[in-house]
């Protein structure tokens, strides 16, 4: 090794170490973020709501490109009641907690299921919608119960609560073909794979599965009676944002009491 090359390598190494230590020492900034941001949000007049705009029917874009959906209607009503505008920010669903904790968004509100694992990262509002993790197959399969999934390929959306629900039954998951679920970026891709018969079943939120099935023709699919458990949708907040959480919880209470909530439900989920 020539002397020049050696010296260059040393310089390079020092630079890399320098950058790493810069990143390392910087954690003291985080304390500033631990404050309740309600006053600041009130001052700016709006909160930012993180939405996966591919998630029909909870929050998605219509043909005009406007974000619509059950969660969007609900949020707009809440916005009127808490006196803060709501700005919608589309996000990549796998980055949602990072977006929240870095302050890019103030709430995760888009068919966000309440789970124990998520409770460690975010604070949840009261549950506002019930949901099940259903198992969907094509109509003509011999899969009729959960146990029939052994030896089959099962798909779900990456980072979704369906994956977490399945993990509560590790033996069953280990018995899947491949020993784990096949994960896709979106539920739509999981369902397309089901239609292509490369996977035998999809586990997904009931609300979403029903929407998809309705679009593609209900007679081609079946939803098994057994499921991977019930769960509820909640709104995710930064843990320190207690005041905002309380304000929105109260608005939801009022909406449930005066029938506004039922109206919005009717609009999106009427059978």
């Amino acid at each position, binding site marked *: 090794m020539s002397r020049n090359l050696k010296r*260059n390598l040393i310089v*390079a190494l020092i630079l890399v170490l320098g950058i790493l230590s810069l990143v390392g020492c*910087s*954690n003291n*900034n985080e304390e500033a973020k631990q404050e309740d941001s309600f006053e600041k949000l009130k001052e700016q007049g709006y909160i930012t709501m993180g939405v996966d*705009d591919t998630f029909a029917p909870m929050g*998605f874009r219509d*043909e005009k*490109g406007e974000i619509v959906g059950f969660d969007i209607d609900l949020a707009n009503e809440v916005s009127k009641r808490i006196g803060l505008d709501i700005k919608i920010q589309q996000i990549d669903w796998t980055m949602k907690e990072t977006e929240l904790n870095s302050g890019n968004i103030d709430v995760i509100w888009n068919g966000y299921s309440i789970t124990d694992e998520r409770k460690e990262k975010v604070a949840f509002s009261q549950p506002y919608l019930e949901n099940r993790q259903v198992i969907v197959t094509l109509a003509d399969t011999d899969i009729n119960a959960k146990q029939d999934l052994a030896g089959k390929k099962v798909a779900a959306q990456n980072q979704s609560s369906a994956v977490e629900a399945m993990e509560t039954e590790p033996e069953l998951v280990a018995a899947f073909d491949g020993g784990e679920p096949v994960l896709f970026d979106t539920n739509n891709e999981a369902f397309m794979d089901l239609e292509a018969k490369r996977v035998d079943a999809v586990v997904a939120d009931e609300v979403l599965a029903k929407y998809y099935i309705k679009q593609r023709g209900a007679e081609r699919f079946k939803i098994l009676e057994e499921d991977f458990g019930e769960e509820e949708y909640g709104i995710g907040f930064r843990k320190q944002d207690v005041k905002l959480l309380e304000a929105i919880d109260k608005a939801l209470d009022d909406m449930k009491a005066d029938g506004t909530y039922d109206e919005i439900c009717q609009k999106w989920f009427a059978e």
Partner: protein
Amino acid sequence: MIDYIIRLMPSMLSGLQTTLEIFAITLIVSIPLGILVAIGRQSKIKPLVAVLQVYIWVMRGTPLLLQIVFIFFGLPIIGITFDRYPAALIAFILNYAAYFGEIFRGGIESIDKGQYDAAKVLGFTPAKTFKRIILPQMIKIVLPSIANEVITLVKDTALVYVVGLGELLRAGKIASNRDASLTPLVMVGVLYLVLTALLTVVFQKLEEKYAYYQ
């Protein structure tokens, strides 16, 4: 079917607009930056060369997706905060400047050293030598490689979804989810192909223009 495609068009075109913006700005900034990187790599200042080597190593050695995530989500930890759009642009520009830099370096190094001596004898300053003699020949040599990178860039723009920017592919996925249909994705594919076809023609014309020795 035709009706459906026409109804999809507005959202696709708005996605296409973001794709084109990211594409154009990245190109316009990263090509000159790439030339600077290539010149810097030839420099006699050793620390500068070392820094550039590390820069190229990092940019080519990690996925672009990771770089975007790092600039948008990682840098705020050390107090540097960018909006979504600038963060994505910075990642793209830094990444592509590294690749362009290496392509240009290859171009510069392929030019015979005797030409520098000749230019010196003729009384050209180093700057003038580069601009008048080296650069025109280099462009000619690197055009095919640049065309390759530029076409890759068109498709790489899809990565900005990770910071929540809506581009062409995202617009297709949204429509595909909403309507449970593959048609929007086929449309997206066609639009990318049209873009690539246009670029291919542009680069063919450029190559013809620079083929003055044949």
